[in-house]
């Protein structure tokens, strides 16, 4: 079902743009036939954009759900606990101060996201599954945001604008050369996450119970964090941290597919969210906004609702 929705979203992304092409024209252009106009626009410009959006959405959706489940807190998405901030800070410093661009920025962002996660795990000590991890993440995130602000003042206004666009999360830089590394990374990490997912059930019972069931608790948790951080970092490196996708996907999937840990549905929903938000940002609003502004604006009311609801019911917050 969700996969069908995702395919539809990809197709709409391919059809709609400055000029709207009919679906059959798009498919013929993809198959290599010459269709006036569409032959260039669709495979060269729109297809990489759609693929990048979908892949990044998959990565954010899955990673967000892993963090939320592992830390037992719907608010503990990588946006909030500083991991996205780590990747962003490194990338902005690379763009604005070192004057770098292209793949090297992405590589730096990935490395720094992983480094920040490592620091968080070390600082939190043994209580990974708990409030300490989240609070330390928030503190580290605030520190990294100061680094971002500093880098922004050291740049020219054009670079600052470019960096800000990047900070918000945007698909405007999505062209073919960036797709293969992203696709490979997601193709490795997403199945790994799905393989690890069954261990969640045992981990949620507590470490002792998990050990008794034959699931090595500490090691499973470490691997899950490694995979999730990898996904976040790779996605952030490709498009910047698209606000709230990681945060929204899990809860939406949980509502649609009750009971199990909704890892795959959450990933698919992440992809749909990114594509739909990008369509809205590009075409429905007066100015062209990057996708992150749209997801941020959509995420805000939901977030407030979630906060008030879990607080009132005395949930796991």
């Amino acid at each position: 079902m969700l996969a069908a929705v995702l395919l539809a979203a990809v197709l709409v992304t391919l059809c709609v743009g400055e000029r709207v092409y009919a679906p059959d024209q798009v498919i013929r252009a993809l198959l290599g036939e010459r269709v006036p106009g569409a032959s260039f626009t669709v495979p060269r410009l729109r297809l990489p954009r759609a693929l990048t959006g979908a892949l990044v959405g998959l990565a954010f959706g899955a990673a967000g759900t892993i963090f939320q489940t592992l830390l037992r807190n719907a608010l503990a998405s990588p946006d909030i606990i500083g991991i996205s901030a780590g990747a962003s800070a490194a990338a902005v410093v690379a763009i604005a101060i070192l004057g770098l661009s292209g793949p090297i920025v992405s590589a730096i962002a990935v490395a720094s996201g992983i480094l920040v996660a490592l620091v968080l795990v070390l600082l939190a000590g043994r209580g990974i599954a708990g409030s300490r991890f989240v609070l330390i993440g928030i503190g580290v995130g605030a520190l990294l945001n100061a680094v971002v602000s500093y880098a922004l003042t050291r740049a020219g206004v054009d670079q600052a604008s470019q960096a800000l666009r990047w900070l918000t999360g945007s698909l405007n830089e999505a062209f073919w050369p960036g797709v293969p590394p992203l696709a490979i990374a997601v193709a490795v990490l997403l199945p790994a996450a799905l393989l690890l997912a069954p261990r969640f059930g045992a981990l949620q019972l507590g470490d002792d119970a998990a050990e008794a069931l034959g699931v090595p608790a500490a090691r499973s948790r470490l691997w899950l964090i490694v995979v999730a951080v990898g996904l976040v970092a790779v996605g952030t490196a490709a498009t910047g941290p698209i606000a709230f996708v990681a945060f929204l996907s899990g809860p939406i999937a949980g509502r649609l597919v009750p009971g199990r840990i909704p890892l795959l549905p959450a990933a698919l929903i992440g992809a749909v969210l990114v594509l739909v938000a990008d369509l809205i940002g590009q075409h429905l609003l007066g100015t062209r906004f990057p996708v992150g502004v749209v997801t941020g604006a959509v995420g805000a009311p939901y977030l407030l609702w979630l906060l008030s609801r879990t607080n009132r019911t005395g949930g796991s917050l």
Partner: protein
Amino acid sequence: MLGLLLGALGLVVFSALSLLLGSRSVAVPDVIAGLTTWPATDIAQAAVQTRIPRTVLGLIVGASLALAGAVLQGATRNPLADPALLGVSNGAALAVVVGIAVAGAGTAASHVPWALGGAAAASVVVYGIASLGREGATPLKLALAGAATSATLYSLLSGVLLSRTDVLDEFRFWQVGGIGGTGFGEMLPVLPVLLLGAVLAFASARGLDALALGDDVARGLGSRTWIARAVAGLAAVLLCGTATAIAGPIGFLGLTMPHLARMFTGPDHRWLLPYSAVLGAGLLLAADVLGRLVARPGDIEVGIMTAVLGAPVFIAIVRRRRVREL
């Protein structure tokens, strides 16, 4: 009392350092000449004279933020309360940006009403959300609500900024939190507001002491808890919103100073508040001087310095086990 005197002495020392040290090396006789010769006759004296408002502003802003933090921590009984972490600064930031974009609010003084409104709205929202539920506003809930609200406000902020490059250019310098480049003319109009905030803060000290015993005990002792909270909250918004408007968001000072002060004074707010103010003023100046020295010939804005120095303190507080309640 002795501690306060020592603190005041420290302030004098840091103020002197702030006048003596900067991106440009000025010899001591020239500094004295700069202080006594009006108007300045050469560049060295002019450089010294720009350091005067900067130093004064540092003292004012540091004291205001630390006081706001202390009052906020007392009123919420939450050791992690800090204007920047709770989204109050981002609320002020969003409002200021809207002010710049819509009403063309260009000067520091015209930022003030916007920042105050934004700060007040954000703090009400964050505290309101966090205090729903049976346990009230626990440190974790408050921090999460603040971080989440901050993230939301930030994406709205970038929505405004991305469509207006001119606003971005003005905003990015305000955002880092700096006390350079302001004159006395811009400071004077906001002083009454800060003064009112400080008076309210000190007036709330007894109420905060009662609150520290817990709401039930406080009520039993005849203290009206909601009045104490309201006065304290108003003081915090006035102090923090105004300081943010003139100096930009400066994080972690409001968080860390009360903890430092508590080491000397214990929990009594009548001593805690003045100590926090003195320490905040001193440390803000120290951080500013440090920022001028490490990045010569440029300087690092004080907001960056306080974040870099303050975040480790925050993490240390979290890592200590007993952070649950104040």
